C-alpha cells in the first residue's frame, strides 16, 4: 500500500463525532468610512495612500515621488504610466532584479486591514511585485470592501496561479523587535485610490 492509501485508510478507519460547518453569515464589522480605515492602516505599516480624482492624474502624482523620478528601470501595468521595461519582452524573471519602480493595478481594497488584491493575470512575471525596489498599486476607490469575508466572496479563487493581498511595504521586526521597513521585498508601497 502506498503512503497515500495508508494515510487515507487510517483516516477512514477512525470514527469521529460528526461536526458541521458553522454559518459564516454573521454581523461582521463594517466601517463608516472604509477609505479612512484603509488609509490609516496602510500608513500605520509604513505605506502611503494618495487620493486622485482620476487615473489621468497618475503621471503628475508619480512625478512627486522621489523613488519614481530617480528610478532607472520602471515597469508599468497601467496605461497612464510609461515604463521602460516591458515584461512581455522579458524571458527570465531574474532579469527583473534591477527594476527600481513598478506600478500595477489592484482589483480591490480591503478596509479592515489595508490590503489590496492583485493577481498575476496579465502579469507575465509575478516576481515583479516582490523584486521591485518600490511598488505602487492603483485601485478604484469605489472598489473597497469592508472585510475579508466580502473579499473572498468576490474573488474567484483558483483562476490565477497567484493572487496576493498586499498590505504594505515588505518589513521585518526580527532584529530585536525593531520594525524595519523594506525587508527583502519592496521598500515602499504607495496605493493610489482613484475617484
Amino acid at each position, binding site marked *: 500500500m502506498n503512503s497515500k492509501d495508508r494515510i487515507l485508510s487510517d483516516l477512514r478507519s477512525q470514527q469521529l463525532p460528526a*461536526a458541521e460547518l458553522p454559518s459564516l453569515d454573521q454581523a461582521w*464589522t463594517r466601517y463608516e468610512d472604509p477609505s479612512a480605515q484603509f488609509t490609516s492602516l496602510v500608513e500605520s505599516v509604513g505605506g502611503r495612500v494618495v487620493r486622485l480624482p482620476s487615473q489621468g492624474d497618475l503621471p503628475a502624482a508619480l512625478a512627486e515621488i522621489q523613488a519614481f523620478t530617480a528610478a532607472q528601470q520602471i515597469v508599468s501595468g497601467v496605461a497612464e504610466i510609461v515604463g521602460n521595461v516591458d515584461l512581455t519582452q522579458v524571458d527570465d*524573471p531574474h532579469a527583473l532584479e534591477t527594476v527600481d519602480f513598478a506600478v500595477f493595478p489592484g482589483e480591490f481594497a480591503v478596509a479592515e486591514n489595508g490590503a489590496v488584491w492583485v493577481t498575476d493575470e496579465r502579469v507575465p512575471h509575478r516576481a515583479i511585485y516582490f523584486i521591485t525596489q518600490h511598488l505602487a498599486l492603483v485601485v478604484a476607490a469605489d472598489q473597497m470592501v469592508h472585510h475579508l469575508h466580502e473579499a473572498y466572496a468576490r474573488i474567484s*479563487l483558483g483562476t490565477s496561479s497567484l493572487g496576493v*493581498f498586499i498590505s504594505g511595504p*515588505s518589513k521585518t*521586526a526580527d532584529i530585536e523587535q525593531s520594525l524595519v521597513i523594506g525587508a527583502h521585498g519592496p521598500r515602499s508601497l504607495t496605493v493610489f485610490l482613484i475617484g
Partner: protein
Amino acid sequence: MNHAPLAAAFVKDRPRAEWHDATLWFVRAKRDKAAQSLPEWETLRECAAQIKAHTQYRLADYLEQFEREATKRGAVVHWARDAAEHNKIVLGLLRNRGVTRLVKSKSMLTEECHLNPYLERNGIEVVDTDLGERIVQLAGEPPSHIVLPAIHKKKEDVGAIFHKFLGTEEGATDPNYLAEAARAHLRAKFVAAGAGLTGVNFAIAETGGLVVCTNEGNADLGVSLPKLHIASMGIEKLIPRAEDLGVFIRLLARSATGQPITAYTSHFHGPRPSGELHIVLVDNGRTGIRANEDFRRSLNCIRCGACMNTCPVYRRSGGHSYETSVPGPIGSILAPAGDPAKFYSLPQACSLCGSCTDVCPVKIDLHHQLLTWRGELGRQGLISWPKRLGMKLGSFMFRHPAVYRMVGAIARKLTPWLPRAVVYNRFNDWGRQRELPEFPRESFRQQFERRQREQQR
C-alpha cells in the same frame, strides 16, 4: 531531556530573562489590542474551531478533493507517511532537476522533519530566507519561536553574527543597517537558487490552492524566481472552502503579532507559467493524534504562536528549553505524542494557568490537554519516582483522616522548633527562595470543633 534545568539556566541570567519576558509580553499586548478592535473576535474564534472540527471529521474526503483540484491546476501532489519520506521526496525533486541551491521560507513542518541537515548531508545548500530564521541558521541554532525565530537574540548578537558571516561592521547594532545587509545577502540567494520551498499556512480543498503569509515577501521571491516551487504541508493544514479563509486570515496575524494581516498573503494555484509546483502532504504522526479524542483538537493549530507569547513559563525559559521544533504550550502537547519518554517533562513545564487556551484563535483546550498528558505519562510510568512516591504517601494520608491529622499536628508542633539550617537545606526546594508558611498552634478543624462545643454550651 528535562525542561526544568534548562529553564533554571535561562532564569539565571535574570536581566536577560526579564528582557525576553517583557519582549514577548509586548507581543501578547499587541495581540490584545488587535483582538479588541474586532467586536466579533470571539465569534471568529468559535467559527474557526468549528471549521477545524468539521475538516478533521471529513479529513480524508477533503484531502482527496484537494489533490484532485490541485492536480487539475497543474500541481503535483505527493504523500509522505513520515518525516523520512518527506525528506526523501524533497531531495528527489531537487536531484532530478540538478538543483543544488534551495531557498526556504518558514516551515515548522520542515523543522519537525529535520529537513535542512538532511539536505545539507546530501549536498544541497539550504538558505532559510525569513530574516529571523537566517539569523539562527547562521548562528547554528534552531529557532526559539515559531513566528519570531530569533526573538531570543539581541541586536548585539545579530550584529556579531552578521559581522562574522555577512561582513558587516564589527559592533554594528542598528537594525536598519543590519537588515539592509541581510537584504542584499538574501536577494543574492534568491537569484542564485535553483528551487524555492515554502510551508503552507492554509490549503484549500475546494480550489486545490495554498496560502502562504509573510511580512518580508521572502516566500514569494523564493518561488517566483526559480522554476520549482515545493510546498511542504502537514495534512491538518487543510480547510474546506475559499470563504473559510476569511475567518482564518482575520485571526492569524492578529493572534501572532497583533497586525490585522501580514504584508503578503499569497494564494498559489498550480505552478506559475513554465514553472512547477510540487506539494508534499505529510502525516508524521498526525493521523495518530487524530485518533485520540483527548488530543485531536491540537490539530486545529494554525501555528500562530499566541500560546507561546502568553505563556508565563515560555517567556521566562525561552524556546530552546523545550528542545523540540515547536515549543511552548502547543509544542508540549505535540512533542510527547511523538516521543513520550523524551518529552515527559514538557507537560509539567506548566502552571496550568489556562492563558494559552484563552488566546488560542482556534480554541484548542491547551491547558486541559497538558493535564491529560500528565495522566497519560503517569500511566506509561514516566513520572519520576520521588513524585510518584510522594503522591502515593499523600493519597494514603488523605484517605486516613486520623493519619492526616497526626502528620499535620506533628509538623505544626515540631517545625517551629527546628533550627533554621535543618529546615532550609538543599533538599528543601521550596525553601531555596521562599520562607515556609508559619505553623499555627491549632488547625482549622481544631478551632472549628472547639467553637462548636462552646456554642453548644
